[in-house]
């Protein structure tokens, strides 16, 4: 078990190394550096050079990479080009906002999805199952911006129950204004629910066909007991891994959802920083996302390893 963890951790470390190089390379390739963005079109080469020197943009690539990595490790992520503040200060409140949103979406999606998945899988091909399957199919098919806009049309414009955008004053805690959280959460939940539900259903169906389920049935156990004590615990193993991986996936969803609702989280910050070529912020966010992805994968592996007796008890 410990070996298992150690192997996984080292693989993650390796992957993150590759990732950091990737991030750095891609952001370097972005045309028009921040200095140019800031100063605009009509600018003298001298002032451009001066600004570049100030940001350290005139040093060779590998020096800048090592500098960045060094900074990362020691906790100094540099200053934002656009906001002229330390990256951490810009990023921190946004991270908090996104975490709130993601947490709510997760808390709503996971229990409902798992429950429906089990319910549908056990009643395979029944009317209820078909209904849920169709609903989940629609769920994974609709892009978040479509559902988001749809919700705005229905709940904000037509019914006027909720605000149409989630714009807040900076430094506001979103928890103090729950109404702006509802629609973004619902949108994010939609796709999350659909994916997890489908996976759960597939896993349950697969386990139902296993030989040990036949043994349990022919032992004279009630179908109730067979499902709860035999099928579900085994079906949950791969499902929990999938759920953990979805944490990472949600980050992609955040980009669109935050844009649709103008919610001040890391998604919208990411878009802004790309447009303004605010490289330090961009790099920091990209790395943050990659690390979250990696950690969610680790969590998935860990939970699978802990819960699966084949791995836990060698």
């Amino acid at each position, binding site marked *: 078990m410990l070996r*298992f963890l150690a192997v996984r951790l080292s*693989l993650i470390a*390796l*992957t993150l190394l*590759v*990732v950091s190089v*990737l991030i750095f390379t*891609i*952001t370097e*390739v*972005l*045309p028009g550096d921040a200095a140019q963005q800031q100063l605009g079109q009509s600018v003298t080469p001298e002032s451009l050079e001066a600004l570049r020197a100030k940001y350290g943009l005139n040093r060779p690539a590998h020096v800048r990479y090592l500098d960045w990595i060094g900074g990362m490790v020691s906790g100094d992520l540099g200053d934002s080009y656009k906001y002229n503040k330390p990256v951490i200060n810009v990023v921190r409140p946004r991270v908090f906002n996104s975490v709130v949103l993601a947490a709510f979406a997760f808390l709503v999606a996971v229990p409902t999805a798992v429950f429906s998945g089990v319910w549908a899988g056990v009643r395979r091909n029944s009317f209820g199952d078909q209904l849920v399957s169709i609903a989940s*199919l*629609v769920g*994974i*098919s*609709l*892009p*978040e*911006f*479509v559902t988001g*806009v*749809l919700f*705005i*049309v229905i709940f*904000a*414009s*037509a019914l006027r129950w909720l605000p*149409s955008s989630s714009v807040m004053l900076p430094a506001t805690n979103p928890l103090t204004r729950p109404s702006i959280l509802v629609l973004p959460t619902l949108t994010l939940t939609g*796709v999350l629910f659909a994916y997890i539900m489908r996976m759960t259903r597939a896993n349950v169906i697969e386990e139902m066909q296993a030989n040990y389920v036949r043994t349990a049935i022919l032992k004279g156990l009630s179908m109730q007991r067979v499902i709860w004590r035999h099928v579900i615990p085994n079906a949950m*193993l*791969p499902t929990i*891994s*999938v759920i953990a*991986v979805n944490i*990472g*996936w949600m*980050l*992609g*969803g955040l*980009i*669109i959802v935050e*844009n*649709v609702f103008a919610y001040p989280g890391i998604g919208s910050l*990411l*878009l802004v920083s*790309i*447009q303004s070529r605010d490289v330090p912020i961009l790099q920091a966010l*990209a790395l943050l*996302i*990659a690390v979250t*992805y*990696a950690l969610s994968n680790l969590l*998935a*592996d860990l939970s*699978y*390893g802990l819960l*699966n007796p*084949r*791995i836990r008890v060698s």
Partner: protein
Amino acid sequence: MANQDRLELGPPQPADSGVMASQAVTGTARTGLLRTTNARATAALGSLLGQFRLALRTPAGRIGLPLVLLHLIIALAGPWLAPYAPTAFVGSQLEPPSWQFLMGTDQFGRDILSRVMSGAGSIIAVSVAGAALGIALGTLVGMASGYKGGRTDEVVMRVMDGLMSFPSLLMALLVLTSLGANAANIVLTIGVVFTAPVSRVMRSITLSLKTQEFVQSARMRGEPVPYIIFREILPNTLPVLAVEGSVRLSYAILLASSLGFLGLGVQPPSPDWGLMISESRRFIVVAPWVALAPAVAVATLIVGVNLLTDGIRQARTLPREGTQV
């Protein structure tokens, strides 16, 4: 939207001592009686088009395929079928749906229905091309790496893992911003972004097939490696490839429309469904219909492709025998 990748669940299981290798075989080879009666259908599984034909046997496929075909027809014939030119200012601004303009007009007075129909071509073309590119690259990388095994495989998989550590939307945003947003670059971006997840899937099936005896047989004949991969192994991956291709297509459409929504799709004045929805937000309160047509279009297309995917998946289980005697 990120990649819902097939999760590799845990390390391979240790072999059980005391149980013979032949045990695993007794279930299949001993069914001397139960041949695959639908052997020709099995042959059809060997061709990609055959997959789609088989999908028609399932309820999901029966709805999905026509839906997709409908979109394809509109994509190809759109510019001719549309009542007005997509960039022409034919009516007053923000007119509600009427007999003259079935889906209303947008903020410039252009007919929305015509714009939607004309926009079908670009998004479908870009998605199909991008998905195809991703599959081609991913298959090459995944199969070669999987067959080779050893250190090379490890290194390649680390790099693929690295590429998959971002949501594909983020990668696409970064790449497109660097290269500039035009159709060719979008195709390239989608292709590159999909290479990693496709390579994982293809590698996985290559790993399981390369231990099969017919591959060992080919090795003993002295067949060169490319021959083994493409002539012996590849035909057996087609069922998996078809499903993956379908899934990638739906992701490609999602990605392309999301990029359009964020302003990085096909540039105006060409109609782009995502961009149309994004722009409609300004008028959502006074003119909600502006978002409706493109939303329905993109939703039905993706639903169609997903139904088709489900159809292909279910069809794979149809020809197999259902009982054990």
